[in-house]
């Protein structure tokens, strides 16, 4: 985390300042820094409401045993993907809920489930400072789009006068599927390679 973000964060800031100076538009960069950090707070407050709401609902579903029931129904596929996670454990329940929310396009719900799954994975696999293979697999699955119907795209296409807003669906499905399949394959290969080398990476 900190290794990747060190370069992304540092690099973007230094580049912005240099490019801003070269183009003689340093004012835009400094204004952006001020307004963007305000935006970050707004975003966080929005997220705060959604995450707290879903965490509350999830807690109810968990204590009543509802999440265990859904996880049992949906986990056969995911169990094959995530090795070594207890099929009835908390982590698997949240993974199932996160993937389901992703498929349905409930972006607001999938993040709270995803964060809860990460924390449960951390507890179950005792990751410490080093990400486990299952954690990485879960995160990269979330960096691929699993949404069945891209509603935002369809709505914007309609708004911009498209004759057939949904005509892009087959192309979206094929590209999403290839993206997800390649990402998972890459993660599996890289994980296996790291295991062969012992620790490291």
């Amino acid at each position, binding site marked *: *985390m*900190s*290794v*990747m973000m060190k370069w992304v*964060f540092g690099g*973007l800031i230094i580049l*912005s300042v240099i490019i801003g100076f070269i183009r003689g538009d340093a004012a*835009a*960069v400094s204004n952006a*820094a001020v307004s*963007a950090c305000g935006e*970050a707070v707004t*975003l*966080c407050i929005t997220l*705060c409401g959604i995450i*707290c709401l879903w*965490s*509350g*609902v999830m807690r*109810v579903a968990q*204590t*009543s045993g509802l999440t265990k029931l859904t996880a049992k129904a949906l986990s056969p596929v995911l169990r094959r993907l995530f090795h070594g996670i207890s099929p009835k454990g908390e982590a698997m329940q949240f993974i199932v809920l996160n993937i389901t929310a992703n498929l*349905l396009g409930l972006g607001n719900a999938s993040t*709270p489930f995803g*964060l809860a799954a*990460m*924390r449960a*994975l951390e507890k179950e696999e005792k990751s*410490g*400072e*080093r*990400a486990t293979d299952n*954690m990485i697999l879960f*995160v*990269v699955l979330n*960096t*691929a*789009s699993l*949404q069945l*119907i891209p*509603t935002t*795209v369809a709505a*914007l*296409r309609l708004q*911009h006068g*498209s*004759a057939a807003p*949904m005509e*892009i669906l*087959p*192309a*979206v499905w*094929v*590209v999403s599927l*290839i*993206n997800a*399949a390649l*990402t998972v394959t*890459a993660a599996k290969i890289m994980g296996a390679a790291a295991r062969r080398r012992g620790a490291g*990476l």
Partner: protein
Amino acid sequence: MNFNIGDYAVPLIFAAVFIFGLAKKTDVFSEFLKGVEEGLGTVRDIFPSLMALVTCVGMFRACGGVELLTEWLKPVTELFGFPAECTPLVILRPFSGSGAVALYENILTQTGADSFAGRVASVMLGSSETTFYTIAVYFSATKVKKIRYALAAALVGDVCGWILSAAAVRIFLGA
């Protein structure tokens, strides 16, 4: 056409959770409150990295970095028959969801929703996620410092997806 599965799914999920909870004699109110408290902890944990990412991306957009990178990437994108209008979307998409949507609207306004660039942009946006943002936020909910091959694996899928989106539009929509 405006049917949104989310409009129906969310209220139904809420109802199902509370009906099931009450049927199982769960104290739905105090469990809900405990969940909210846990949620607050999560938000506190992810806030610093959210702040860092949103700020540096905001600065990068303002300085004209996206346009500059678009110019540099031109030889590569031309090689794949990728519409030049969509390159900024490739650069911004992994970092910012709202930024990508704003750019996407721009592309639709300029070239039309049913143009080649408009269709490619639609496929790109519909088939990808905010990769850097997701990795940063998900791991910041944990104590993990070494994310190992997570970024590399995620980018393999993204890069192939973007290259393929132009080809997919040609195959499925003819142009």
